[in-house]
């Protein structure tokens, strides 16, 4: 019988939550790396027991941990992230140039086919790759040549937070960077281009055709249609049908189009999920009601999903890496909050149940569907 394993990263440690395919009773394992900020954990699609975790601390820096047994035991691997060549500079808040400085790994994306190959998204924004199971990391420096000198950190830091590997084309990778935008390579990471045409950021960018500088919060795709991407931007939910060459808005009837995560149903490529947040100055749900919104039409028409979610006095946030789907039937959807709840839906979002209520602030949630 199938099982689900959730990998939950929090401000104060990592947790592994497991359930059988019914997704009603959950076993909680953790905290692992207690006291450390666990930005992200993810399993290899090629070997689900191979997990990677980003462990960081303002005091003691960056560690990368690897598990070969599904998170029961862990071993530290390489954590030396060195920018290739002369690190160079990017735009600073006062308009001057500022040197690139490694701060932490926001996101780890294991290869779809090789458990030893992983991509790491860093702050200050850069993409790194290992092919030896995390022992050594090399930058793919072509990304920062895509007008990196014009990138500028947002309030949350200049982090590379999303890495999407095209399942139909190993040469194609998409990444998204806070306050810089979305980028694509078609040659396995050697060269990159900004793919932000159609994004509008009138308050942040006076130039309506600015190639970079857009505050992209998250992008997502369905593996059956990797040229269709969905985006939660700072404001606006966006969609592209041509691999990012042009974007159009699909916010439709959302009560607010600000938010962080966006994800796609495992079996319905036109069914997408967002969590509307009131505004960039008030990072909590509208009216104290925690609502996931689902579109079954690839955007524009949205329905609120509220059953089992608090509908009064709720003022948590849901961060960009804190939503995931499993691939069972019906599709399971999961998200974690800054208030420490992890919610699960075993029916594609129709009803929700909290798995836990009192974790530290949740930074990331990943779902593994196990045989």
């Amino acid at each position, binding site marked *: 019988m199938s099982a689900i394993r959730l990998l939950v990263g929090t401000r104060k440690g990592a947790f592994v939550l497991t359930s059988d395919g019914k997704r009603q009773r959950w076993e909680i394992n953790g905290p692992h790396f*207690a*006291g*450390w900020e666990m930005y992200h954990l993810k399993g290899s699609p090629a070997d689900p027991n191979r997990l990677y975790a980003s462990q960081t*601390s*303002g*005091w*003691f*820096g*960056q*560690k990368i941990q690897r598990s070969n047994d599904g998170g029961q035991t862990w071993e*530290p691997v390489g*954590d*030396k992230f*060195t920018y290739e060549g002369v690190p160079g500079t990017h735009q600073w808040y006062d308009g001057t140039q500022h040197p690139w400085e490694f701060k932490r790994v926001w996101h780890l994306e294991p290869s779809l086919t090789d458990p030893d190959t992983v991509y790491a998204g860093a702050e200050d924004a850069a993409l790194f790759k290992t092919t030896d199971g995390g022992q050594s990391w090399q930058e793919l420096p072509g990304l920062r040549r895509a007008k990196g000198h014009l990138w500028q950190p947002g309030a949350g830091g200049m982090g590379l937070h999303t890495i999407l590997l095209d399942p139909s084309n190993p040469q194609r990778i998409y990444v998204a960077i806070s306050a810089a935008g979305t980028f694509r390579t078609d040659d396995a990471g050697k060269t990159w281009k900004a793919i932000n045409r159609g994004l509008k950021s009138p308050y942040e960018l006076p130039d309506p055709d600015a190639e970079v500088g857009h505050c992209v919060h998250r992008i997502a795709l369905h593996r059956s249609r990797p040229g269709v991407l969905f985006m939660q931007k700072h404001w606006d939910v966006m969609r592209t049908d041509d691999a990012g060459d042009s974007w159009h808005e699909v916010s439709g009837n959302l009560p607010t189009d600000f938010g962080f995560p966006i994800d796609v149903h495992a079996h319905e490529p036109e069914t997408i999920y967002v969590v509307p947040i009131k505004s960039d100055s008030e990072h909590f749900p509208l009216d104290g009601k925690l609502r996931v919104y689902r579109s079954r039409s690839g955007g524009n028409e949205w329905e609120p999903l509220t059953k089992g979610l608090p509908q009064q006095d709720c003022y948590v946030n849901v961060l960009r890496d804190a939503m995931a789907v499993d691939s069972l039937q019906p599709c399971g959807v999961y998200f974690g909050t800054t208030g420490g709840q992890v919610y699960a839906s075993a029916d594609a979002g129709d009803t929700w149940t909290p798995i836990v209520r009192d974790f530290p602030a949740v930074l990331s949630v990943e779902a593994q569907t196990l045989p």
Partner: protein
Amino acid sequence: MIRVLLPAHLRTLARVEGEVQVEVEGPATLRSVLDALEARFPVLKGTIRDHGTLRRRPFVRFFACQQDLSHDAPEARLPEAVATGAEPFMVIGAMAGG
């Protein structure tokens, strides 16, 4: 033999309890003690000093014999009591909350 006290998070990372002990060849300095510590526990590389530059991380401090040694030069000799093992060399995670 140099006695080193690590903060709790680094003890967990290095999988040790209590003090650790390292041997250094030649004079006991900040650099030689930290080099020996990292040689014995490679997982500590990058946690006390930055990779590459080997500069002390901002919220890590060094104390021994009731002295703050955090700003001492890497080659400066540690107090004799540290070199003889009478007193521990302490790596501290600075209070930096707020």
